């Protein structure tokens, strides 16, 4: 069912990682008082984790194999 090559499974794994990162309980871990460079931690976490996830996806898609 999954087409050949390793990109499919890797991307699916990234999807699962994203589901984990942007869900309870991981969100609750970051949903606390405090700031990072003046930005509330939860807000900073969202954008940093999001950017990291996109970077990983780019890495997988653009890899040679």
């Amino acid at each position: 069912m999954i087409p050949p090559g390793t990109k499919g499974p890797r991307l699916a794994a990234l999807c699962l990682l994203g589901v984990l990162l942007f869900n309870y309980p991981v969100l609750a871990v970051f949903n606390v008082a405090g700031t990072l460079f003046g930005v509330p931690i939860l807000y900073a976490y969202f954008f940093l984790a999001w950017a990291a996830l996109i970077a990983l996806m780019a890495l997988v898609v653009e890899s040679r194999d």
Partner: protein
Amino acid sequence: MLQGPVIVLTSFAYLGLLFAIAYYADRRADAGRSIIASPYIYSLSLAVYATAWTFYGSVGRAAVNGVGFLPIYIGPTLVIALWWIVMRKILRISKQNRITSLADFIASRYGKSALLGGVVTVIAVIGILPYISLQLKAISNSFTIVLQYPEIIMPAKLGAVPLLQDTALWVALILAAFTIVFGTRHLDAAEHHEGMVAAIAFESLVKLFAFLAVGIWVSFVLYNGFGDIFTRASTDPQLKPLLAPLEGVAGSYSSWVWLTILSMLAIMFLPRQFQVTVIENKDEKHLNKAIWLFPLYMLAINVFVLPIAFGGRLHFPGGNVDADTFVLTLPMVEKQEVLALIVFIGGLSAATGMVIVETIALSTMVCNDLIMPALLRIRALGLTMRPDLSGLLLGIRRGAIVLILLLGYMYFRLAGEAYALVSIGLISFAAVAQFAPCVLGGIFWKGGTRRGALAGLLAGFAVWSYTLLLPALARSGWLPSDLLEHGPFGIELLKPLALFGVAGLDQTTHAMIWSMIANIGAYVGVSLMAAPGAEEHRQASLFVDVFSQPDEAGGARFWRGTASAPDLHDVLARFVGTASADEIFREYARPRGVRWPQEPLEADAALVHYVEMHLAGAIGASSARVMIASVVKEEVLTLDEVREVLDEASQVVVYSRQLEEKSRELEAASAELRAANERLKELDRLKDDFISTVTHELRTPLTSIRAFSEILRDDPKLALAEREKFVGIICKETERLTRLINQVLDLAKLESGTAEWHDTRIDMRELVSEVVTAMSQVFHDKAVRVELRAPDGVPAVYADADRLKQVLLNLLSNAVKFCEAGRGRVEVSVSGEAGRVRIDVRDNGPGISAADQAVIFEKFRQVGDTLTEKPQGTGLGLHICRQIVERHGGTLWVESRVGEGACFSFTLPVAPSQRAAAAARVA
């Protein structure tokens, strides 16, 4: 600068620019040099996902509940990672079956059912109306607000306006006209709108630029960076609750999850997303880059949402400015006219992009899957006989565009005011999510049937209408509000916002849970209850097994009947025009070696399927089916026959796999055989060499024995001394011969592995001194000094004592042989080293050159020139020694330099039980 005429002129100039881009792109496409065949343009066109909702609504949502706007963008980021698996399949299916829209896709999957296509179309149109109304609301609101400049007055405060002065109506009409010129200028057989895609990609850049501009201005000009905004917000008692820790996220964690799921489905099944992702896709490979570029775009357009939201609330503390308008009102209140105009254009581009693509996609669906199949079925109209229908098709599409926009406007008038932008959009998201079970089920599960899909869609849609659409109308005062508070006829269990008593969820979550239960339950349940028909079965296998289909003609093998090529040509020409039909036929004939139209084409299953596919590209699968059926005489295949064809095909696949497997095995076997043959040949050659060498070696002593025997026989007068000397030579040569034969036998045994070994524990010191003692007479005769160095504590080895003696004797006699008489010295030493015992035999003879060292261990190789010098040995000794040492798991080697003597060494592994002890000693 923000006067009415300037704004109107700028808006029209912008639309004009869009049109110019589209026109240019269409021209290039006609010339065969597409400008949209790039993964970057493809990714930007996907960004049509970001509408006025994103541009204005996200800030409004963020100002109310912090991160609540985010799941709408994080959901697509997550699901797009699965596109490699899911969307590639949908793309492949759509290309093979020439799918023209989402409705066409679903209808085609479930047996080209016109009914199903119609239902999907109706759901899509009704479901999308709120979304279109959202765009109209955003454009007309932003226009109204800008017109009040320098005052900041919310449109709601201006009171109701008469119909003809309502900007939203004019916006709807202008957009309809624009979309018509844009998307339905001509009929494309493949439903490609290159111009539209180019314009949409441009719009994506404009809205991103505008939003980033206002975001940077708010964050870094109006305030001193992100930290400044959040610090100020934290001192404001009203904003404090929006700064972490939030109470759940987006209201609660459960709504967060459902909003994420909702947006995951929306990004795939919104008609306009399906249009740009699937229908307008030029190359499957473009998907790769889009998988990360599109999420990156969403990230970029969301970075400044929170700063603008907090900045806006700090700036307008009274709450009399709608948060949905912060993007626009912040620059206005600070008298930034240029920026405000840029924002207005950005919002316009976000809204127009959505409206254009959405209405084109919907009008295609309405025309191909709702109206045409119905018209074609009404025999009285005789449409199947009309010579040219392309005009009719365009007319229907244009009408559909106007109608959809007017319906959107009507929804705006009916229900638009009661909700914020995002809430309106979510209603549409929930509607298109109803397509998910039958599409995803359809491409991965062959068991899904037409009835199941129909039941699922209708059930899901009914629940959606009841829990989302009905409350929206009730809140706007068009239905009694009693309905919401007490349920229909006072039945509390049926309250639309708390169905069966499930309360405490937000409206969207509540609707999604119930509609998905109804939808998936009905789809799976009904599918399992009744078997699919023949046509469904065959389409199911074409869709689910798309990656193992041979090619586009995969469907042809299911067709049986009679047809005529001119009829097929006629029916195609009616919809796509004669010129295109001619071209399509020529393309078909060329690879088959037929010079059409001079030579006739055979109207076989392949041609019928080919024409049907092209027709489907213009009018959708179900209409194409009807048209084809009207010109050919078709034998309807029964379900069993379809199954047979499918089974045959899968059998063929299985057989060919087995065949491949077999041939691979054969290849491997023959390679092995070849290698074995090579080895045998090599052995044969070696044997020949060996025999010829051995016979040569045997002949040398025999020759001299014979020569001296003849002398003794023929010359009786020979002196006694001479006689004794000759007999002595004969004896020596005989001995040599015996030795040689013994060694050859020995070697044969060693090499064939039949030699007998009697391994025992041996103390090497004892063995070496025994051999040295036995050889002492030889040393003495040649006056060669021998030294034995054997320290205590050398571990024992496990080996055949006689064989080791043979090795030592050989090495020692060699050493003696090459030592100069009188000055010679031979040194024998025994030592233990890391798990091994080492024996060295060193002499001070002439030494061995490097070239000779390389060969002395080979058979019949001796140092020195064998032609001129009398050989001093058989040439087998060292070879046998090495064989013996290696048999015991050791190594034998030589170190030497010419003129400095030679040192033959060998090592043997220590006997097992002593290895540990020996290792300890060495350490």
